């Protein structure tokens, strides 16, 4: 089976390095970036400008789930979310599109953009952070930590609470990404 590093080259490496302690369930919100590039930047990093509210994750007994919430950007510069990580699962940024008369989800080609002084909503039936290859069920009330990675290298940790939810079961069409 072929590993599909071509579609997310930088991330595969980062994923193993940047696992955050699961016990660190800090409330959602901008945190000081930990990376060097961001610390040196003159402008506040994307992670420092973006807050996440109403984050939740779909409870599931399957090996896939998704994280939703609202990303708000307080700065005058757009924030470009390029990846997400979780120590629970493989993570991709997904969108939902029409295909052959049905809705399917697939990885977004270029991440999510949170406009300057604007927001970007992750919701069932729309953009979401996909969790794949979950090792254990997620039950209602669980808290799942996901780290968002922005283009400027800054990182933001969010805690999503698990809710039982019936919708958002779009078929996964990895397209030409190959077998996973």
């Amino acid at each position, binding site marked *: 089976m072929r590993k599909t590093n071509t579609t997310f080259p930088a991330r595969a490496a980062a994923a193993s390095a940047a696992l955050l302690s699961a016990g660190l369930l800090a409330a959602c919100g901008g945190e000081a970036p930990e990376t060097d590039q961001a610390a040196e930047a003159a402008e506040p990093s994307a992670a420092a400008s973006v807050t996440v509210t109403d984050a939740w994750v779909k*409870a599931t007994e399957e090996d896939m789930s998704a994280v939703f919430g609202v990303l708000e950007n307080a700065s005058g510069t757009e924030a470009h979310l390029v990846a997400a990580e979780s120590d629970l699962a493989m993570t991709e940024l997904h969108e939902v599109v029409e295909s052959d008369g049905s809705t399917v989800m697939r990885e977004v080609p270029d991440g999510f953009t949170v406009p300057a002084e604007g927001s970007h909503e992750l919701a069932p039936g729309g953009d979401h952070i996909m969790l794949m290859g979950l090792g254990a069920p997620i039950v*209602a*009330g669980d808290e799942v930590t996901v780290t968002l990675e922005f283009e400027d290298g800054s990182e933001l940790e969010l805690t999503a*609470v698990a*809710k039982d939810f019936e919708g958002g079961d779009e078929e996964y069409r990895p397209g030409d990404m190959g077998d996973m």
Partner: protein
Amino acid sequence: MEPKRQRLNRRGLLGAAGGAAALGAVGAGAAALGRGSDETEPAAAPATTVPFHGAHQAGITDDAPSQAVLLALDVNDDVDADRLAAVMRLLSDDAARLTQGEAALADADPELAAEPALLTVTFGFGLDLLDRLGLSVPAGAGPLPAFSVDRLEDAWSGGDLLIQVCGEGDLALSHAIRMLVKDSRSFAGVRWAQRGFRQRPAGGGTPRNVLGQIDGTSNPDPGSADGGEAIWFGPEAGALAGGTVMAVRRMRTGLDRWDRLDAVGKDRVIGRRIADGAPLTGEAEDDPVDLDAREDSGLPVIPTNAHVRRAIEAGETILRRSYNYDDGPGPDGESDTGLVFIAYQADIGQFIAIQEHLAEADLLNDYAVPIGSAVFVLPPGCEEGGWIGQGLFA
């Protein structure tokens, strides 16, 4: 972006007693229910929300709105204290949002959250559950003994987790229950659901129950020191101070039998007049009950076994906030009505003393029979960011 919805007239209109009275759809007369509530509301926009956060949980001392649904859940055996804490956080968050007119997280029908119509959500824990999880049971809480009048049915008794939902909006209630039960499914099943109603008199004042009696006249004033002490756990309860213990008693009323009584007979059962709720020793509803008054014949004016005499002579105070139920006539045309009798008190002993006294002798026993019974520990309220029951898990 999810715009923060406007929160209408919160604390302002919902003072000691105002609350529900202002809801335009229900009563033109804005007089509040209950005691110690002589302030009338200005003709401002009606309040539509009851604050969720505060020292005490909502849904206890605020004016009872017209609808209530009580749910008792049985928590699965494999649920431990950590898991219960996690779901209480979740359920508290649902309640905090829904009662303020905001959709819950993962709300499949967010539009139904927009009009909360005085929605309140109140949580309580059954004693067995607290025991099972090794959580502390406050000194004021304890099980009820069997009372001689009890004809209890399992279908209406017990339960690990109480969710009391009250409000004026049928859809808001239905939606809130749907959300809360959905979020409970993974750790609990529904043991029973009891639906109750009250009808606010158009001119204001104390409502009547299914027996036609004006019911709820003599209740402690939660704002007074004595009243507060009768209702809430004190500082000795530690993290549970500001909580209360709740007795839910489903009481089936025998309306066919009640119908056979004439007006005088009905008055004597309670010791108050059906017509205006005044004690048989007074002229107006608020007149004192004079247990010593005698007829010329020497017999007590308020009969020896009248409900209020027996209740008063028990010497305890409880906060009653009961609802009626009507589950429709059966095939034989006999009605299935009664009270979802609800009492809150600092110590379950207060309730037991009264119920024991009533069981011993009470003319009302011929017309109302307890068929369901449950006791729940209601933790205090929480502040924003906190959740109901937090102190129990510390």
